[in-house]
């Protein structure tokens, strides 16, 4: 595939991520921090998020499967996940965390429980889409092209 095709595919994918609400403006902020002094920044921080969020979601699910759920602990995990997803612009994940915490504040256990599966789903979607995005970046660079920047 030639460079301009790859670049077009990349831009289309990135645009769709914003349009679908998977990413928000904060992601653009991260891209602006990437430069020749910090060339792999976005990939690095998103990879950290994959590990961090993956761990938190595993803990969440495991806690929910206990006989006696420690909701305070669960809420603390969700608070952390909300924070880190907001920091990288993972809008849908952030939003589900927000919804969870609203249910938690109202002591709505069923509401909380109903957020867990969507949270896992949104994380898996986010991970696969961003991995595809980064793979395209690698292909573009390998083909001698530059990664198109989104301007908001």
């Amino acid at each position, binding site marked *: 595939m030639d460079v301009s095709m790859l670049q077009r595919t990349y831009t289309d994918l990135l645009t769709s991520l914003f349009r679908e609400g998977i990413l928000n403006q*904060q992601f653009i*902020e*991260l891209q*602006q*921090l990437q*430069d020749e*002094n*910090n060339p792999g*920044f976005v990939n*690095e*921080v998103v990879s*950290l*998020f994959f590990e*961090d969020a993956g761990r938190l979601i595993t803990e969440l699910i495991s806690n929910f499967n206990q006989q006696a759920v420690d909701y305070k602990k669960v809420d603390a995990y969700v*608070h*952390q996940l*909300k*924070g*880190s997803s*907001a*920091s*990288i*612009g993972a809008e849908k994940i952030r939003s589900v965390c927000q919804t969870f915490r609203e249910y938690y504040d109202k002591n709505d256990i069923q509401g909380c429980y109903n957020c867990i599966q969507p949270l896992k789903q949104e994380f898996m979607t986010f991970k696969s889409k961003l991995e595809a995005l980064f793979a395209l970046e690698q292909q573009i660079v390998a083909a001698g092209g530059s990664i198109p920047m989104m301007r908001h």
Partner: protein
Amino acid sequence: MASYSGGKSNGGEGSSHQELHVLAVDDSLVDRKVITSLLRKSKYRVTAVDSGKRALELLDTEPNVNMIITDYSMPEMTGYELLKKVKESSELCQIPVVIMSSENVPTRINRCLEEGAEDFLLKPVQLSDVSRLCNRVLR
């Protein structure tokens, strides 16, 4: 320009912009990476630690910190508690402290400002927040 040799100046005359040292405190690995990059992009030297306890340990051994930027919600020692300890210390009280939080709680913000915080930033922190802040706090 005076040479920078690890003297006791607190970002005053002679220190260039590039040599100002910010201590970032956040228990979230993702957020530490983001705030570090934000500050480095703005040309500050950054040390990032994951707790108030480590921040105080560092401040004990490394006198040349020109600003502390800390998350509010951290286990064991909150950003507020760290702020208090810094302001209560005769060696450290001159260092400006900025608090970051993902939650917009007016009573929390007021409490921090009353305790001597320079500013309170809502997360996610952006480049414009950092440049506005550093222009004001670290001239």
